């Protein structure tokens, strides 16, 4: 994976350069932002192929939005995470074929969506167990937990992405973590997590 060649240049500045026709800015933004939206989409959807589609579509919307971007009003990454999360939500709804209320309710992902990612996943039992447990979380809890604990966003950043208050974010992540602990606890014996330390 190529490293970001210009880590000191802000996303804002790069987007302005991109809008001005700078090819190098397009390359840096691609390398910098695509991994982030892909990671979120994989955790949200549990399907690599669908996640790639979401990542590409999110980036396409970024390219189209670039000329209208007003620097300083919001973070580019926050905007992009929001677009990707909404696209994931749309796909999950279509996958289930149900309305919005049900899509945000409790429920597990279809089991046959999981193996593709898990086969590529590291052989680490913990990673696999958490991936499975995440897929069983309600969508909003999963999104908050992934953004907080896997993507490393702050609570205010997550609040901006999910367009909710900070307290709601704290509630979602706390409930999500408790649910994960319960789900992982059920598998503890078969995974031997305690023995692995």
């Amino acid at each position, binding site marked *: *994976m190529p490293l970001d060649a210009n880590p000191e240049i802000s996303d804002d500045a790069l987007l302005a350069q*991109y*809008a001005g*026709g700078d*090819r190098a800015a*397009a*390359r840096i*933004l*691609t*390398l910098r932002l*695509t*991994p982030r939206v*892909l*990671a979120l989409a*994989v955790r949200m959807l549990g399907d*690599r192929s669908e*996640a*790639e589609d979401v*990542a*590409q579509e999110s*980036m*396409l919307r970024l*390219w*189209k939005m*670039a*000329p209208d971007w007003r620097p300083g009003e919001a973070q580019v990454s926050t905007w992009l995470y929001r677009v990707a999360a909404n696209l994931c939500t749309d796909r999950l709804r279509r996958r289930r074929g149900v309305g919005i209320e049900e899509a945000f309710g409790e429920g597990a992902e279809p089991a046959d969506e999981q193996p593709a*990612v898990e086969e*590529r*996943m*590291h052989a*680490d039992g*913990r*990673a696999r*167990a*958490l*991936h499975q*447990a995440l897929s069983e979380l309600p969508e909003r809890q999963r999104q908050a937990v992934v953004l907080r*604990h*896997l993507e490393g966003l702050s609570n205010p950043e997550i609040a901006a992405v999910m367009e909710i208050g900070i307290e709601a974010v704290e509630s979602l992540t706390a409930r999500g*973590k*408790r649910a*994960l*602990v319960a789900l*992982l*606890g059920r598998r*503890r014996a078969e995974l031997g*997590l*305690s023995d*692995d330390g």
Partner: protein
Amino acid sequence: MTAEISKDMERELDACFEALRAAREEPSPELLARVLADGYAEQDARTAVAPAAPAPRRGWLRNLIDMIGGWPALAGLATATLAGVWIGYNPPAAFDSLTLALLNESYGYDVGLSASILDLDEVQADG
């Protein structure tokens, strides 16, 4: 609210997060190429539809010149005009012979005749 997570469970969960972060899915070169191609295409599309500089406004003189037939036609017209003025001021002898033959009058301006016609003293005396 349910019970808080124990320290041991918290540590286990953190270890799971750590493991999953390490197993993060990275984009393939093909995906990066597709994303970049989209980015370039959007830049190219915007360049193609960027509004061109407005054409300068054409003045009435320019329009008139074009209506006549452009600068060459205007040059010909100017030459013809100058020739006409010159002929009027100093007609060639052959032209005068022609008018004398046809009209029994000289083409040229007869100063003596004009002077006699416009002799105000005579007009007043007659009057």
